[in-house]
């Protein structure tokens, strides 16, 4: 199977005043095409640093990082921008949608920075991405007219629009309630079965169970890297008690 990510003896150090902080102390792993990997760890474990490096937002102090067989370590700032634009789809905890801008235009955003895509193609690709996340009927809505789950779906559509080699999610369910989290995870699972490679950074174990491999970090080192039995998010969603507050209220009223 094709290797999407290969990191080798990755180290990242920060100089804070006179102190040197070792965020990553030499970690190595590979992620193959079609995997759904969660990266776990408490705060201070180095998972944010790893995420920034995997997302080509930061560069390692030493070690090698190959994304889709390209060595990222030696690339310039502008080349990293292009890599992010063509190969990575980001999903953030707080959605980061542009306010007062329609869902469709939000999804089009990455393509505006890709000069090989024409205006017509851009629109079509954005519409297709919104269809994939089940929001084809909300294209003209602005973020304020959408629920949190819908906003995160728009953000996922934006991550998908450039057909990246991997999706990189940073606490993507952190701002959502359990039900909506499960809905989002089932969307990720659906995308994964269609062949998307997904790297999911989280600190919640009950979200990590929906992935098929867990990499656990502590103090800048990998302490666990194992395949897990994947739970179905749809099943989890069905097992949730249906008595939402709203329905309880309706019942009491009756």
């Amino acid at each position, binding site marked *: 199977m094709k290797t999407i990510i290969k990191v080798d003896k990755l180290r990242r150090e920060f100089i804070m005043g006179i102190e040197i902080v070792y965020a990553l102390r030499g970690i190595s792993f590979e992620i193959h095409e079609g995997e759904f990997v969660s990266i776990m760890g408490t705060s201070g474990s180095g998972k944010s640093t790893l995420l920034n490096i995997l997302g080509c937002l930061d560069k390692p102090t030493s070690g090698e990082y190959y994304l889709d067989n390209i060595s990222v370590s030696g690339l310039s700032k502008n080349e990293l921008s292009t890599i992010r634009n063509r190969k990575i789809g980001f999903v953030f905890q707080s959605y980061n949608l542009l306010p007062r*801008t329609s869902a469709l235009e939000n999804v089009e955003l990455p393509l505006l920075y890709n000069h090989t895509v024409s205006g017509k193609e851009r629109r079509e690709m954005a519409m297709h991405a919104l269809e994939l996340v089940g929001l084809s009927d909300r294209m003209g809505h602005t973020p304020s007219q959408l629920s949190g789950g819908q906003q995160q779906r728009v953000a996922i559509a934006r991550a998908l629009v450039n057909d990246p080699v991997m999706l990189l999610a940073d606490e993507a369910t952190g701002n959502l309630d359990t039900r909506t989290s499960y809905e989002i995870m089932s969307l990720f699972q659906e995308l994964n079965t269609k062949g998307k490679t997904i790297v999911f950074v989280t600190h919640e174990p009950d979200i990590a169970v929906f992935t098929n491999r867990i990499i656990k970090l502590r103090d800048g080192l990998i302490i666990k890297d194992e395949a897990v039995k994947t739970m179905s998010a749809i099943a989890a969603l069905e097992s949730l008690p249906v008595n939402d507050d709203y329905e309880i209220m309706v019942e009491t009223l009756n």
Partner: protein
Amino acid sequence: MKVINLIRISWKALLRNKTRALLTMLGIIIGIGSVIAMVSLGQSSTKSISTEISSMSTNVIMVMRASQTQGGINIGSGNVQSLTQNDIEAIKAGSVKISKASPVVNSSQQAVYGANNWPGSIRGVNEDYLSINNFEIASGTNFTAEDVKTSEKVCLIGKTVVDNLFDDGENPLGQVIRLGKIPVKIVGILKSKGQNQMGMDQDDIILMPYTTVQKRMLAINYIHMISASAISEEASDLAVADIESILRRTHKIKEGADDDFEVRTQQQILDMLSSVTGMLTLLLAAIAAISLLVGGIGIMNIMYVTVTERTREIGLRMAVGARNNDILKQFLFESSIMSLAGGMIGMAFGVGLSYIASYFLGWPFVLNLITMGISFFVCAAIGIFFGWYPARKASNLDPINALRYE
């Protein structure tokens, strides 16, 4: 990155904050608007003055008596008796650049007709004066050279004098009015010329043969002024030089001594007036330019606020592939679009304002395309200049920090 995409991005970002963008543009609108209005109105007033003056004929040359000093005391020009009819003959004979010349002898006498009276400004001239100074006769005739020779008691009167001495419907032609003690017959009425550029009423005038004024009113044999016309406007400088050399010779002024006369042309007056209006225009435009500068600083201020407020947006754009340069350009475009749009609205506003003002002031409307072009470039420059630092700040953000900015 395609420029069209950049413009699209900047435009949409501005549309997200319409009110703020409009308020920011207001500074530029007022700045450019006032610069355009001031320059355009200044040019209108200059033009209105110069058309008025050229209607008075630009090749008029005036020779006046210079003020003189006796024993260290400047006695002004009132008692100077240096100019005479002989000077006119000498000028006419000595210079081919002079087509006509007339003496001017001024006097003022109370004009009386029936029960009406009016302070008459009397100007003694010869028969050529009318054509030198573009006076026209509305009815009647000019007096003749013969009238001048014989000191005939005839006159031409202006409209203001007619209005004040005669009742409505009365025909002044052929009537005899009294000027001081002398009865004078009206042989012609002058066409109205309105006010001159100094605001003086050119119709409040009584023209008579200068000999009549000299002998019958003032009992003098010198003249106050010479009014001459050059053969053409271009020749007036040469004509002035001729007059000066002729008069120095006839007045026997020694080498190095000051002239006892002064020569002025209509052109000099025009130049003086337009230099005054030009200076005023410059002053007003400078004040307006300060408001433009303030507008530019307003743009800079808002752009700084915008960059801080949209830090996360900038982080996101970088995460999805925007280069630092793309961010820089986006914010430069935003500030330039604001200043250019503001500039264009301001131009329309300024042109409108000066059109309305010149309409009510009765000045010709002047639209200077060069000023418009310069303003356009100034706007673009303001947008880039004042947008540069905020845009630099935006493009230097670290995407990791920007994405987490609260």
